[in-house]
Every structure is written in C-alpha cells, then in structure tokens.
C-alpha cells in the first residue's frame, strides 16, 4: 500500500528583545551562568510578572507577516509541570486565548506552490537550562534563559512530504529574520522545531496516529528525522502493527528516533488563566502602527525582483535569502544599472568568497559602489570579463577600488587595432607549423592562436577584437 505522510510543525522562536518577557533582565546569550537573573525570573517567593510590551509588538509583527487574525483580547495561562529548569513550577504561556490564529505561509516545493496553514501564534517564556557534568553525579541549573520571550508558531497538518516541511521551515525562518524579531540561530536554540507526523493510506481522509518528534537542531535534521520516522511508521503499518501516540527524541549521531514518553506518561499541564497578569488588549490602532513598521517580506521582494530587474526566479530566490543581501544587490543595481550582470557577480564571486569563508554579506569588503564601478568598467570595455575576475579577487582581499587596481597593474584592455595586429603577427610568425596546419583545414587551432595572443598581452587583449583580427589575418 502507498502511504502518505501528514506533517505539522511547531516552531519556537526566541524574540530579540533587550529584556526578558516578565522582568528587566538581559536576554543576551552566553553570559556567565545565572548572571542574567533576578528574583522574578528565579521564581522567588512573592514576585510577580510584568508584561514586556515589546514582546507583544514583535508577536503582532509575526502575526501580520503570516496573515493571521489578531485577537484583540488575549491572555496568559499557566502550564504546570515540575522540572529544575522551570523556576516557578509553571511556564507562563498562552492557551485558550493566543495572540494570533488562522494564518498561512506560502511555500514552493519543486516548482509547486502550496499554502501551509498556521493554526496559532502565541507568546510564552523560555525555561532555563540544565548543565550535566559527566564527572559528577550533580547537575547544574543555569537560569539565564528562564524568562526569555518565545513565540510558538503552530502549523496546520498541511505538509505531505519532508521537502515541504523543510521549505515551510525555511520560509518561516526567513520571515522571522526579515522582521528582525529573531536571530534564527538554530545552534543556540533561538529557532527550534518539533514535528508531528503520521501516515495514512493514500486517498484516505482520516489522519493516522501521530508521533511527536523533538530535539532536531537544524533544518537538515528535521528532514532526516521526518524521513526516518516515515520509514519507521511505514514498517510498523506494513507489518500489520499500530503506531503508538508518543513523543520521540531524534538522536543525531545514530540517525534514529527514540521513544521519550508515551500517551500514558503524557503530562497533564493543568492549564488555567494566570491570575497575576491582566488580559492583553490590542487595539486596531496598535496593529496599524505595527503594520507600518513591517519591512517588505521575502516573498514580495522575490516577486518584485523578477518583475523589476527581469532576473530568473532562481536568482531572485538566492538574492532575497536575507535582507542585507537583497539590499546589497539592489544598491549595486542602482549604481550600475545592469541587473542580470550584477546578479551573476553577487551570486557567483561575492557569495562564493563569503560562503567559503563563512562570512556574511555585511562583512563583505567589496561594497556595492565598488562592485558597481567594476561592472561599469566591464561594460565600457575598459577591462575584459576575465581580467575582472582578477580585479575582483584583489578588491576582495585589499578592499581597494577597481580603478586603482587596474591602473596599478596596468590591466586596461587593449582595444587598439594596431597594437593587437602587431601582437597577432608576432604569434603567427612564431608558430609557422600551426598556421600551416590551420590553413590545411585544422580549424580547432583557432583557439590556440587566441590563447597565444591573450598570453602575449597578459590577458588584456579585447577577446572580440582578437577574434575578428585573427580570422581576417589567417584568411589572408
């Protein structure tokens, strides 16, 4: 039987606020353990939470970017469970009344467009972290992260294969980073994903029993874990078994999922409205104010690039991967006026160098004015495309302007016919046997002559002119 996977994803994104969600401690990552704590985030007796309004604002941004309905009145609830990284014995989260509901994200997988529904987006506080010492029976608690604001974005079970799931995640990640509300760092846990997956016979409407997958800390691992889980569930179903509803942990080193807890051991979180916090009222006015601050989102930018710059959708996709890269490209185009050539250079040499060194576009030594100047120098024939590669190399290393490099190295293209003619004559004179063979019908040798001329001119000869002149002179 053919089975169809049904996948829904839950994403936790840490918000880039300066301070925690319910106190004024810093949210900075990597500080000395427990140095970013206070009586409130330590859950001392008698303390009370006070809502950080920035968190609401950021969540509204995400809600607007994903076409959600924003609930004018929403509120916090307590999710009760015991764990040493949870200082109060409950997590303040949203339950019955989340900030946003019923949105969507458009994805494109293997050329096919699809709309993935978003069930809800809600705000909550992060827990701390346990540190285990392998050489000691003790564990340690670091509560720097306790109270860092999170949003949880829950998708509908709309994805039908692992590629779609990965694409949805990338789009979501991209939106969060574009909005500058999350740094998207998966390794530091700023962007975390849990997945719900079940199989059903193809054509069946009813969902099968699902497993919840946790502990996947990269896009690749999400996809790998889902692929593994599809195989595992398929094997169970094909051998006549039943999938158990449970939570499973992805083991990266083994490439498998392990059962963490079953349905019977599932927590009863005893949710109830948090009496310490008053409902959050969001006026239409507030929503409009936030809407005005929204940047152009990746999808819109992509479509505009194709339309405005007449570049292939593939190029537009690469160039809009981040806001900084898109800005870099647009600035270059604005200065040189050659969108496609600019796209080739940015996607090729610029990103090539940066990726190799794992650097980001904002750290690129070649800034848009220099790149645009170089493109113009190619266009007006001052340098050849080939020389340009050399020039760019130097620009990237030294940060100097292309003109400076060209002048210093004497790289200006030779377009003077007399000079070229002389160079060609010298080449032909030095290669009498090849000239003879060529004239005897060995056309392939033409390239050899071009190469020799380029070599003689240290690559500065205008290739087009060399071609024309060579053809003429060999015909004589």
């Amino acid at each position, binding site marked *: 039987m053919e089975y169809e996977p049904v996948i829904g994803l839950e994403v936790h994104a840490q918000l880039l606020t300066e301070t925690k969600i319910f106190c004024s401690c810093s949210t900075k990552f990597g500080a000395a353990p427990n140095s970013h704590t206070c009586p409130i985030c330590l859950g001392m007796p008698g303390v009370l939470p006070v809502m950080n309004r920035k968190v609401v604002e950021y969540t509204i941004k995400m809600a607007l970017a994903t076409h959600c309905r924003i609930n004018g009145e929403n509120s916090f609830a307590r999710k009760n469970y015991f764990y040493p990284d949870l200082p109060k*014995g409950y997590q303040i989260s949203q339950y019955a009344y989340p900030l946003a509901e019923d949105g969507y994200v458009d994805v494109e997988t293997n050329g096919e467009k699809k709309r993935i529904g978003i069930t809800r987006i809600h705000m909550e506080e992060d827990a701390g972290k346990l540190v285990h010492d392998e050489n000691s029976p003790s564990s340690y608690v670091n509560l720097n992260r306790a109270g860092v604001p999170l949003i949880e974005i829950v998708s509908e079970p709309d994805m039908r294969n692992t590629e779609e799931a990965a694409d949805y995640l990338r789009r979501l990640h991209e939106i969060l980073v574009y909005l500058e509300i999350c740094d998207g760092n998966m390794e530091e846990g700023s962007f975390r994903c849990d997945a719900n997956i079940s199989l059903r016979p193809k054509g069946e409407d009813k969902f099968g029993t699902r497993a919840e997958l946790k502990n996947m800390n990269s896009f690749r691992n999400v996809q790998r874990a889902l692929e593994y889980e599809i195989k595992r569930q398929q094997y169970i179903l094909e051998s006549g078994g039943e999938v158990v509803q449970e939570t499973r942990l992805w083991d990266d080193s083994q490439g498998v999922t392990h059962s963490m807890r079953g349905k019977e051991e599932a927590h*009863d979180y005893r*949710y109830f409205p948090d009496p310490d916090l008053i409902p959050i009222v969001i006026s239409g006015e507030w929503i409009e104010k936030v809407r005005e601050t929204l940047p152009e989102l990746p999808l819109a930018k992509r479509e505009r690039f194709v339309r405005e710059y007449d570049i292939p959708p593939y190029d537009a996709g690469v160039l809009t991967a981040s806001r900084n890269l898109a800005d870099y490209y647009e600035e270059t185009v604005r200065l040189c006026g050659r969108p496609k050539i600019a796209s080739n250079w940015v996607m090729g040499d610029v990103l090539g160098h940066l990726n190799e060194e794992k650097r980001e576009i904002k750290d690129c030594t070649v800034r848009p004015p220099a790149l645009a100047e170089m493109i113009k120098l190619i266009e007006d024939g001052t340098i050849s495309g080939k020389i340009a590669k050399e020039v760019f190399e130097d620009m990237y290393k030294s940060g100097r302007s292309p003109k400076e490099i060209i002048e210093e190295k004497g790289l200006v293209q030779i377009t003077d016919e007399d000079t070229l003619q002389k160079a060609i004559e010298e080449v032909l004179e030095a290669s009498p046997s090849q000239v003879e063979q060529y004239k005897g019908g060995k056309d392939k040798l033409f390239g050899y002559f071009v190469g020799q001329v380029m070599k003689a001119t240290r690559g500065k000869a205008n290739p087009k002119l060399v071609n024309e002149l060579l053809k003429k002179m060999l015909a004589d």
Partner: protein
Amino acid sequence: MELSRLTIHELQEMIKKGETTSSDIVESVFKRIDAVEDKVRSYITLLRDSALEEAQQADREIKKGNIKTLSGIPIAVKDIMCTRGVRTTCGSRILHNYVPPYDSTVVMKLREAGAIFVGKANMDEFAMGSSTETSYFEITKNPWDLERIPGGSSGGSAAAVAADECIASLGSDTGGSIRQPAALCGVVGLKPTYGRVSRFGLIAFASSLDQIGPFTKDVEDCAILMNLIAGHDPMDSTSVPTSVPDYREYLSRGIAGWTVGIPKEYFIEGIDPEVSGAIEKAIKEIEGLGAKCIEVSLPHTDYCVAAYYIVAPAEASSNLARYDGVRYGLRSESGEGEDLLEMYKRTRSEGFGAEVKRRIMIGTYALSSGYYDAYYKKASQVRTLIKRDFEESFKKCDVILTPTTPTPAFKIGEKTDDPLQMYLSDIFTLSANLAGIPGISVPCGYTKAGLPIGLQLLAGHFEEGKLIQIASAYEKHSKTEKRRPEI
C-alpha cells in the same frame, strides 16, 4: 503610661510635641513583648536589635525636624511579606531558612514612611487556615483567652496588636484572614479592594484573592496605614491605577442619610446567639446615627464556600509548585541512588504540613484535564454571580453589614480534626474576596465570657473610604465598652 498601649495617631502627636521618642516607644513595645510573648506567641521572628537601632536613627531625624507619617512607630508584618535580609517563612518548614533578597512593595512603603519593624508575625502555613494552628513554628494564643485561637491566617498580626506587642501590623486576607482574626482579637482589620494594594513581595496563596491590609487599634490608624499602602505599583499588573483618596478625610464625617444593607442570607442557623445579639445591637446603634437599615439579598451566598475551596486551592497548587528544593528553602537530600523525583517528593512531603498538602491535592485535582470545566471553570462562573449579587445590592445601599464570624474565638485544637468546620468559620468573609470588594471588621462588643465580637462592613470596589467613614462613626458613637485583654 505604657506607650505600647497607644495608637499611631496618639504617638505621632507625642513625637511631634517632643513628649516621647521612638526609642522610648520601641523599648516599651519590647518590654511588653518580653512580658507576654511567651504566652501569646505572636511572632516567628523578632527584630529587637535592628528595631532599637532604627529607633535611634529615627530620633536623630525627628530631632532635625524630619518627621514622616510613621516616624519611629513600631509595626509588625505578617511573615508572608518579603523583607530584605530578614527571614521570611510564610509559616512553613519549607521556607524555614529563606531570606529574601528584596523587600515587598508594602514593606518598602512603610519603611519609607519611617516605620520601625518589630518582627515577623506568626501565621497559618502559607495562610491556609483560620486559627494560626497550621503554622510550622508555633500556635499563637488569643490574648483574650490563652486557651483559644486568635483566628487566622493572620493570627500573629492580630494578636500582636491586641496584646500591645506592636502599635499596628499588616496582614493578608485571601478568604477572611485579616477580618476574622481582627474580630476574634477585638481589633480593627481591613481587607482592601482587590488591586488596591500591591501584592509584589506578598508570598502568593491564591493570587486572584490575596490582598494585604492593616490591623490597628482604631479606625483612624487604619486610615493612616491605608494612606500609605494603597496605590498602583508597576511591579504588580493587577494593582489598579485609580487614584487613592486621603482616607483620613472620611473619619468623623458621620453617616446620616446612609442606607445600610443587611443580607438575609448571612443570618443563618448555627450563628452564635451572643454574636447575633451583638450585631443586632450594632444595627440599632447605626440606625441611631441616622442611617436606614434595609434587608438585601445575596442569593448566591450558599455557593461561596464551595467556589472558594475550588479557586483558592487551584491557584495555590500552582503557586506552591516553586517550592521544590532546587533553588532555596528546604531541600531533603535524596539518598544513594535516588533521583530528582525522589528529591522533589521528600522535600515537599517533609516541607509542607497537612493542611497545605490537602489544598495542593484539592487544587491539583480541580485543575486536572477532564475536571477543569466542572470545577475551576464552574467556580469562576459562580464568582461572577457572587460579584453580581453585590453589585445589585450596592444599588440599594451604601454598605452591607454582617457579623464577621459566626462564633467567637474557639478553643485550640477544637476544629483541627474537622477541616470543614474550620472552613465554615470564614463563611461570612469569603464572599468579599470572591467578589474583590473591600471589607472591614470592627469590634462590636464581647461575649459573657469576655471574648470580642466583630462587625463586618462591606462596600463596593474601591470604596474603602465608605468603610472607614461608617466604622469610624460607629466606633466613636457606639456605647459598647472598650476593654483590654488581661494576659
């Protein structure tokens, strides 16, 4: 003259006139404590050294003419309010060694007003109780009869004021924990409107019901303390940013032309005849002051106890989850081979007393999936109805008058084996917490055996002024004799 016997306003006058000093007052209070504390046991922690030192400092300031509202006045606070650097136990073994790194907002406000802290008053463990018998540390005795309970949960705060072991004190009231002990100890106790006083630093029992309020020797002192502690606090989202009047202005205004509502549902069978007798007498006296007393109805009164004992334990079960032995307070070290769960279980088994455990279990059950709708949600709906009952009644009257408690102080141990009987001693006070309205208890006479009886007055949201107005009028003109306990 014993300074410890006087009120805040009397001592203020004397200090202003230079007739006494803070050091003299504090010494007088500690002399009294030395004489009676062994018998009464109002305090978990006494702050003798710091109090005497602060008194000397206060005297220096006073000499410079720098006199604040509470300059040099010795105050006690219930051990549920966090005090920076001073052990705060909440009456529990699980916090027997907990020293907060911060001051609660009310403590900070009183400190800024010049108050001197005498000590941390005894209480029922986590404020769960009506007799102060569930305290891990000791049983506070009623100063009027040392074989009887002082009421609870703020029994220590009430007894300390009644026994002149401080000039005034703060307590907290979740279901009657200020008004009931005030009635049983013969002092004035006010529970403000929910949101009137900051809860920041008040160790939470039931967050949607808890309020801090004063215990005082008379109504004027009550107004003085309310002026200091009321008001919005940015650290407490549930504190309300409405302006605070000067409560002293409500003193001596009289109540001519007022309508006082008497809820028929509160005059039930089982109410002690001496209590109902005293209340009837008080009603007559209030009518004598020019007020009209009418019967009103609060039809959902019967459901108060049930709703309260769902909502309060449910919130408590969550509020008390943080006492897990991980970060502060008691930790019962797990033995060889025992895991985290074992540490949790042992810490909480050994750290909490029976009544606290009972309520954690009730609350956990009420919030469990599948039961939430039937219990917590239903109780919340009942709360709305109770609130509406009061809103309806307050359309017809200025304040509502009831007995504070159905009986005078009972004997120590009398109800400890019968939680339901214990719960019923708050039957007249719970509704104000469920509805969020303010309530005051003022002394209204004594039983033949010499036990105080309390009169409860309730008003609409943020109408503490009205309570002070009528309580002050009654206090001034009532012919009820005023006695002092003999310890």
